[in-house]
């Protein structure tokens, strides 16, 4: 045997070994389907538990995997779902409606993440402590901040202004401040009223000098803020896979609600916010949003929100919330 043929022989053995290794390694992963999921922060506790405590879930990592992709807000997640780049993601009622009406995105609402209830925290508009603005009517001619133009929160602002006898389109100047910039915009007098959400609201309240003008609960006592949505074609083609995912969302939410201390730890690991900072408001009565047991979705509340957006001219057509409701695959699923 020549040196050349020996080298070839060794090379062939090495290539065969590598090929078998390469073939063997993904075999396990190939057997388990992967769901591509978009997420954002804060407040998606069931997902945070799935990311950081996967061993607590029966199906996750065993019958399916999740590829987590973080997004800045819900609107780009709708685009990614329309493009087929995501199977499931977090959405709000307005992004769900716009995605359906303008992007042709057909989807199912499968679980809830955060909502508001009469005794929970709800986003609110604040004014400076010494502001002359005491009622909605006082906002006439004023500059009002909002997290993003076209935000779902505009629906409640719209109703509030209408109830105060104002024309929401003409009587105020609406400017985009973002949640992070809201407090500073108010304190620097760049806006007369600013929208507040957690965790920024807790920080601003601790500093003082602001007062609530109205909360969205004053306008709509119950609301769904963010919830989980899966593409219709994905669910219809993979019902068992989608059901496993929703089952784990249900379990994740129940574990989060059962153990606040651990949930804060989990949220801290995801958000990198110190646990002691989260402890001030996270999952605290009156200080944080409502989390529904079992991540159940209240489709009546969803319907009310869709109607509100239509009445406010934010969506061009009426929508039936039940059209986003899968008969079997919706939390709570055990």
């Amino acid at each position, binding site marked *: 045997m020549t040196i050349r043929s020996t080298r070839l022989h060794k090379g062939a053995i090495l290539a065969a070994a590598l090929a078998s290794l390469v073939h063997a390694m993904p075999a396990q992963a190939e057997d388990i389907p992967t769901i591509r999921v*978009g997420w*954002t*922060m*804060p407040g998606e506790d069931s997902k945070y538990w799935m990311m950081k405590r996967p061993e607590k879930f029966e199906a996750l990592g065993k019958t399916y995997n999740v*590829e*987590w*992709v*973080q*997004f*800045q807000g819900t609107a*780009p997640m709708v*685009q*990614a779902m*329309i*493009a087929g*780049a*995501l199977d499931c993601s977090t959405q709000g009622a307005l992004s769900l409606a716009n995605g359906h009406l303008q992007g042709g995105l057909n989807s199912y609402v499968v679980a809830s993440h955060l909502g508001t209830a009469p005794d929970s925290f709800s986003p609110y508009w604040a004014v400076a402590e010494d502001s002359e603005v005491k009622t909605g009517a006082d906002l006439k001619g004023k500059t009002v901040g909002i997290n993003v133009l076209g935000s779902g929160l505009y629906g409640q602002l719209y109703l509030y202004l209408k109830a105060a006898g104002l024309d929401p389109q003409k009587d105020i100047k609406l400017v985009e401040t973002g949640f*992070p*910039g809201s*407090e*500073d915009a108010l*304190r*620097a007098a760049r806006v007369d009223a600013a929208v507040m959400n957690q*965790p*920024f609201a807790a*920080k*601003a309240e601790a*500093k003082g000098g602001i007062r609530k003008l109205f909360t969205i609960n004053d306008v709509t006592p119950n609301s769904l803020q963010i919830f989980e949505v899966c593409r219709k074609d994905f669910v219809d083609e993979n019902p068992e896979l989608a059901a496993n995912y929703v089952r784990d969302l249900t379990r994740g939410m129940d574990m989060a609600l059962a153990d606040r201390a651990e949930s804060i730890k989990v949220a801290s690991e995801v*958000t*990198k*916010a110190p646990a002691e*900072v989260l402890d001030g408001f996270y999952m605290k009565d009156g200080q944080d949003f409502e989390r529904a047991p079992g991540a159940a979705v209240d489709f009546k509340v969803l319907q009310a929100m869709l109607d509100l957006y239509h009445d406010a001219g934010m969506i061009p057509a009426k929508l039936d919330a039940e059209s986003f409701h899968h008969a079997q695959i919706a939390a709570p699923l055990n």
Partner: protein
Amino acid sequence: MSRHLPSICAGLVLLLMWQLAHLSFGLSGLPGPMAAFAALPELISDADALYDIGQSLQRMAAGYLLAAAFGISFGLLMGTSPLAERLLNPLIMMIYPIPKAALMPILMIWLGIGDMSKILVIFLGSSLPIIYHSWQGGRSVSQIVVWSAAAMGMNRAQRLFRIVLPAALPEIFIGLRTGLILALITMVVSEIVARSNGIGNLLFNSMDMALYDRMFAAIIIIAAMGYALDLIFEAIRRRFLRWSDQQDQIQVAVG
């Protein structure tokens, strides 16, 4: 020490202005430099944070190297061929002002939400100054020298690699330096919309959680990365342009 004194003084002035702005405005979103620096050790000792920085730098390197290879070739073609210049110049001028980050949602739809769309944004963001300066570098080469080389028997490839490219190098390096900083900027911006990892995790997650000291610590890390990359770049440039009569420092041309 005296060589670095101006840089140290500039840094101190910047910190002083930052502290003054913090004290004057009293905004939650603008912590003082002390608070931001105090958050640094925790950030750089976090294995996840270092992984995020590494992932971003990998994407930036891929986008920038592609931009350098493409930009120099494209620019020299424009600089040496009047036909290519007439054809491509309007195209470059139209693409130049487009904010590349605004393309992110569209690229995400075409290329998915993985690394490809981010690398493409970095490539687009950093390639245009490289093209422009390579083009100008190619144009500045004296035609008499090129003709003389041709008369001496050099073929087209020899003229390109032995005459045009070396003569255009000082200008090309200006484009590469500007492109490097733009690559760093677009690297951060490319992670605003969607991300699985990267320095955007440090920056935008801190903003979302109102952790402003941590957010500014991440900005300090990005600034330090920019400074370090520029020092490395300058060392490489000096090595390549030892022969050049240019001054030691080249100016960044922001296009």
